[in-house]
């Protein structure tokens, strides 16, 4: 068969790569962000990211809101584990105001934060399974994620965007039903996690898909500002809970799982191990909470009259409580001036809050240090030279959550 040649006009360049738009609406991207990939056959030559599809101007809105009204904004950053963001914000406010929370509050906060970490890692790991073709694991663990949502619902009323806790503690004491649900979770979940691990960890196809996909060395990861499980999979054991303990984390005994190559398989294993460690922390915290007896067992917030609403019976009978209630609701409390940077170990890494107050009623500047935004930059380096299917796996194993990338 003779060949047919196409006569191109003078000076035109023949493209050797294909541009593929792994667009904002795509079943494999978890949230709205776009990758424009240049492919040479099936190998990725370059990747350009476009984000900002869910940018909601939180930093500008926060300049107009008093401190307690900013908590719902922090919910919507990493919405798979919103209690961690809420607690991080409360810790920042408490640092600015100089509030010290009682131990029982700290332990209850630890329980809530570790439950959120388990919830986030469950989603990430099961979605890595879905993206490599195994749907069963995802649906199976979702049933136990529902239990976590029910525990949060008992405490604060909502499941996803929790707005849990207040400056100084919690809005109400944990009732018996919440503790019963926590006990059910602690009893039934370990077996489920073991089954989930058996499904994936030594599965031949899963290992072949994930091992070697998107590796990163420890120095490159540190240079890119990675924190959290992505950094620990590369071999650096940096965890904010251990380095700068907050909320009484120093009272707990737990290990930090660390990987070696930083590829998707290591990230998967690190997240699984972190779930086991979180379970152990929750058990220790629950035991410590049960040791409080009598009046101490009723403590659920610190004494911060300027920021914590007084109980309603006091508002109707005592003068000071009435005045504080009015001032808090009408937003007439002025913050002390100062600048504070405080961070917590979120499920994806170090979630930081940089708060500048000029003595007014609302922050002068609030900046969120979002781990998802920072490590998404590395996506091009992680996928250069890899195949297209590896790009999908790398994206889901990095645990990119659009709310956190964009804010």
């Amino acid at each position: 068969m003779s060949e047919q040649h196409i006569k191109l006009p003078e000076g035109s360049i023949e493209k050797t790569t294909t541009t593929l738009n792994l667009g904002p609406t795509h079943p494999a991207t978890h949230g709205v962000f776009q990758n424009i990939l240049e492919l040479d056959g099936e190998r990725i030559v370059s990747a350009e990211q476009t984000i900002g599809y869910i940018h909601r101007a939180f930093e500008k809105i926060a300049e107009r809101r008093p401190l307690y009204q900013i908590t719902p904004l922090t919910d919507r950053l990493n919405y798979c584990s919103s209690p961690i963001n809420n607690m991080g914000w409360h810790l920042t406010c408490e640092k600015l105001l100089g509030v010290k929370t009682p131990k029982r509050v700290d332990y209850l906060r630890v329980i809530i934060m570790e439950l959120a970490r388990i919830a986030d890692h469950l989603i990430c790991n099961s979605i890595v399974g879905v993206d490599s073709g195994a749907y069963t694991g995802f649906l199976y663990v979702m049933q136990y994620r529902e239990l976590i949502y029910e525990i949060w619902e008992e405490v604060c009323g909502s499941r996803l965007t929790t707005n849990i806790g207040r400056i100084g503690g919690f809005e109400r004491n944990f009732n018996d039903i919440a503790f019963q649900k926590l006990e059910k979770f602690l009893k039934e979940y370990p077996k489920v996690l073991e089954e989930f691990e058996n499904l994936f960890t030594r599965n031949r196809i899963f290992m072949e898909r994930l091992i070697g996909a998107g590796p990163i060395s420890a120095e490159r990861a540190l240079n890119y500002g990675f924190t959290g499980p992505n950094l620990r999979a590369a071999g650096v054991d940096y965890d904010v809970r251990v380095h700068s303990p907050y909320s009484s984390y120093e009272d707990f005994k737990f290990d930090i799982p660390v990987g070696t190559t930083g590829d998707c398989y290591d990230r998967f294993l690190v997240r699984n191990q972190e779930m086991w460690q979180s379970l152990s922390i929750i058990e220790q915290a629950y035991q410590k909470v049960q040791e409080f007896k009598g009046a101490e067992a009723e403590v659920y917030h610190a004494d911060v009259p300027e920021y914590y609403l007084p109980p309603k019976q006091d508002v109707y009978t005592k003068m000071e409580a009435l005045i504080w209630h009015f001032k808090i609701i009408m937003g007439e409390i002025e913050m002390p001036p100062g600048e504070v940077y405080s961070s917590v170990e979120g499920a994806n890494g170090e979630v930081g809050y940089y708060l500048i107050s000029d003595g007014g009623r609302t922050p002068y500047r609030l900046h969120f240090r979002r781990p998802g935004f920072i490590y998404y930059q590395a996506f091009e380096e992680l996928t250069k030279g890899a195949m297209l299917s590896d790009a999908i796996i790398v994206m889901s194993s990095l645990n990119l959550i659009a709310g956190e990338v964009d804010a």
Partner: protein
Amino acid sequence: MKISNDYIKQRLSEKFAGTQIDFTETYGMLSFVAPKDMNLKVLNFLFDDEELKFRFLTDICAVHYPDQKGKELAVVYHLHNLEDNVRIRFKIFTDINQPDVYTATGLFSAANWMERETYDFYGVNFIGHPNLKRILNVDEMDYFPLRKEYPLEDQSRVDKDDEMFGRGGTIGFGTEKTDHGTLVEMDKNNEGDEII
């Protein structure tokens, strides 16, 4: 060996003996201001020094102070020494009419998107940045939204009545500089409401 804030202060003052560096300490974190042309020199010194070892860039952001003429935009770097667990805050001030700052992307790859975000929100021009485009807002936007002079909401809308529900207009939250006070404070001549 845990390096103390005083030690960092001393090393910085020795190394940059000719330049004016203002140190403050807020909530345990040392924070210092240096002239903006020295930002790369300071960052490189903090990175390379074998005792200071500030090799992790936690965050870059900007703050707008409209009242400080000639130094309205501040670019704030948060650095972290992971081995000794010490954090430090480094600020530079730049004029809003010529907000040129040298980019830190040569030293930290993490600075790439952080500087794009700072450019997007405040208009700080990072000299030498490989791809200084808007990142979170639409490319066609021609103003820098987080500067204090831009209001939170789009003023061109005619369908929302902000006088209701205590929003905007004469009732609102905010500091006295950026927003109005409550209705009672605005009504200084005791005229009461206008009946339409």
